C-alpha cells in the first residue's frame, strides 16, 4: 500500500518535467517538419503552399549548403584536433607536482567562462587586428608582415578563437580522468623498468580513451551549432568562407525570411546532431548501469 502510494507520488513528481520536455521537443520539431514542406516566405505573406520535398531539394543542392557543410566539418574537426592534441599534454602537465597548481588551474579554465560574444570580439579587435592588434605588433617585432587574419584566413581565425574557448574544457575533463588513474599501477610499471613513454602509451593513454571520446562527442554537439562567434566576427563572410550550417539557416530564416528553406536546413542540422547524439547517449547509458 505504502509502496503504491510512493510510486504514485514519484510519478506525479516526474510528470511536469517529462511533459514540458516532451512538448519542447515535439511541437517545434513538428512545426519545423511542417514548414519544411511549404513554400513560405515572410516577405510574401499569404503565398504559403505545399511543395513536398522541394525545399530539401533546394537546400541540399544550394551551393551555399555544400560550402557551409564543408565549413562546419572543417571547423568541428579542427577544433577537436586542436583541443585534444593540446589538451592531453596540458592535462599531463597539470597532473605533475606544480607549485601554485590551483592558481594555474584557474588561469587555464578561465576562457571557458567568458561569454562567446566577448571572446570573439576581444580576439578579433585587441589581438587579431591587422594594424593595431597585439599579434600584428609581435609579428613586427620579428620582422614579419602582419597577418590580416579575418581576410586572409577567416575560417582559421574563427577556429582559433573557438579552440581557445574549448581547450579548457578538454583539459579539465582529461585532468579529472588522470587524477582518478591508479597511482599504484603507474608505480608498478616504473618498478618494472618501464620508460615514461611506454607508461604513457600502455597505461595512461588507454585510461584516457573514454574521457577523450566523451570530450569529442560533447564538443561536437556544441560545435556543430557554433553561432555567436561567427555572428560577431565575420557575419559568415567573406563570401561564404565562414558560413556554417547554423549560420546559413539563421541567414535564410531571419535575413531572407525564407521559412520553408530554413526549416529544411534545420532538419538537416537535427539529423547531423542525432548521428553524434546516438553514440554519446550509448556511452552515457553504459556508464549509468555501472
Amino acid at each position, binding site marked *: 500500500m505504502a509502496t503504491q502510494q510512493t*510510486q504514485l*507520488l514519484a*510519478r506525479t513528481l*516526474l510528470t511536469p*518535467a*517529462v511533459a514540458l*520536455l516532451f512538448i519542447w*521537443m515535439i511541437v517545434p*520539431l513538428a512545426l*519545423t517538419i511542417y*514548414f519544411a514542406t511549404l513554400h513560405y516566405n515572410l516577405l510574401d505573406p499569404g503565398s504559403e503552399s505545399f511543395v513536398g520535398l522541394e525545399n530539401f531539394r533546394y537546400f541540399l543542392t544550394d551551393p551555399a549548403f555544400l560550402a557551409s557543410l564543408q565549413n562546419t566539418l572543417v571547423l568541428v574537426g579542427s577544433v577537436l584536433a586542436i583541443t585534444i592534441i593540446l589538451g592531453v599534454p596540458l592535462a599531463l602537465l597539470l597532473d*605533475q*607536482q*606544480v607549485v601554485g*597548481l590551483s*592558481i*594555474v*588551474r*584557474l*588561469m*587555464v579554465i*578561465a576562457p571557458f*567562462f567568458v561569454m*562567446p*560574444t*566577448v571572446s570573439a*570580439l*576581444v580576439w578579433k579587435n*585587441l*589581438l587579431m587586428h591587422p594594424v*593595431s592588434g597585439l599579434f600584428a*605588433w609581435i609579428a613586427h617585432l620579428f620582422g614579419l608582415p602582419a597577418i590580416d587574419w579575418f581576410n586572409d584566413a577567416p575560417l582559421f581565425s574563427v577556429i582559433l578563437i573557438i579552440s*581557445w574557448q574549448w581547450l579548457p574544457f578538454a583539459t579539465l*575533463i582529461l585532468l*579529472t*580522468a588522470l587524477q*582518478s588513474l591508479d597511482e599504484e599501477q603507474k608505480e608498478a610499471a616504473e618498478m618494472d623498468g618501464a620508460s615514461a613513454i611506454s607508461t604513457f602509451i600502455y597505461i595512461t593513454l588507454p585510461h584516457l580513451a573514454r574521457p577523450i571520446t*566523451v570530450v569529442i562527442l560533447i564538443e561536437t*554537439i556544441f560545435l*556543430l551549432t557554433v*553561432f*555567436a562567434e561567427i*555572428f*560577431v*566576427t565575420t557575419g559568415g563572410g567573406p563570401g561564404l568562407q565562414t558560413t556554417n550550417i547554423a549560420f546559413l539557416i*539563421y541567414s535564410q*530564416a*531571419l535575413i531572407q525570411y525564407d*521559412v520553408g528553406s*530554413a*526549416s529544411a536546413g*534545420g*532538419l538537416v*542540422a*537535427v539529423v547531423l*546532431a542525432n548521428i553524434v*547524439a546516438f553514440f554519446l547517449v550509448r556511452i*552515457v547509458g553504459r*556508464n*549509468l548501469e555501472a
Partner: protein
Amino acid sequence: MARMVTTRNKVISTAAAWLVGFLIFFPILWMVLASFKTELEAFAIPPSFLFFHWTTENYVTVQERSDYFHHALNSIVIAGGSTLIAMLIAIPAAWSMAFSPTKRTKDVLLWMLSTKMMPPVGVLVPIYLIFRSVGLLDTRAGLIFILCLGNLPIVIWMLFTYFKEIPKDILEAARMDGATIGRELIYVLTPMAVPGLASTLLLNLILAWNEAFWTLNLSTLEAAPLTVFIASYSSPEGLFWAKLSAASTLAIAPILVLGWFSQRQLVRGLTFGAVK
C-alpha cells in the same frame, strides 16, 4: 640523487605550467588592461603593458552612453529566472527518479539527455514565429522560458547524479522511525542535498548567463542581456576598444568568480556523469 631529480622535475613542471597558464589567460588579462586605457592608448603601437595612464573613465562612459545596468539587470533576471524555474521543475523529477526508480527510469533519463542534443538552430524558425505571433520577441519572459527548457535536461541530470549518492539507508531509517514523506524531505533529504543543489544552481547560472544563440536571435534591445549588448560593439566602424573592454570586463567578472568556484561540478554537469 632521486630527491634532486624530483626537485628539478618540480621546478620544470612548475615553470612550464605557469607559462602555459599565463598564455591561456593572457587574452583576458589584456582585455582587463585595455579597459583601463584611453581609447588612443588601447590601440597604440607599440602597446603599453603596464605603464600607461590608468583611467576608469571607460566604465563611466559605458554606463552613461549605453545604459549598461539595464542589460546587466536583464542578464541577472533571465539567467536567474530561468535557472530557478528549471530547478523547481527538476528537483521533484530528479528526486523521484533517484529514490523511486522504475524499469523505465534509465530510458527516461537518456531520453531527457537526447532532448539536449537537439541543435537549437533546428527549431529556430518555429520558435521565432511562435514568439512573433504571441508577442514574446524581445521580452525577458520569452528568454526565461526558452533558456529554462534548454537547460532543464542538464539540471535534472546533475541533480539526479547528486541525489543518487545520498545513501538510501538513511531514508529507510527515517521511515522506520515513522517520518512522513514530507518530513523526510525537509529534515533528512534537504540538508544532504544542499551541496548538490548549490553546484547545480551555479553551473546553470553560468550556462544561462553565457547563452548566445537564443539571446542573439530573440532579443534586440528591451530584453537584451549582456551577450547581445556586447555583440553591438561588433560594428567595424566603431573602434571603441577601451569601452568594449570595460563592458566585457564587467560582463564576465561575476561569472568568472562563480565559475572558479564550480570548476569541479563543471566536469560532472557537462559530461552527464560520464567522467567524474
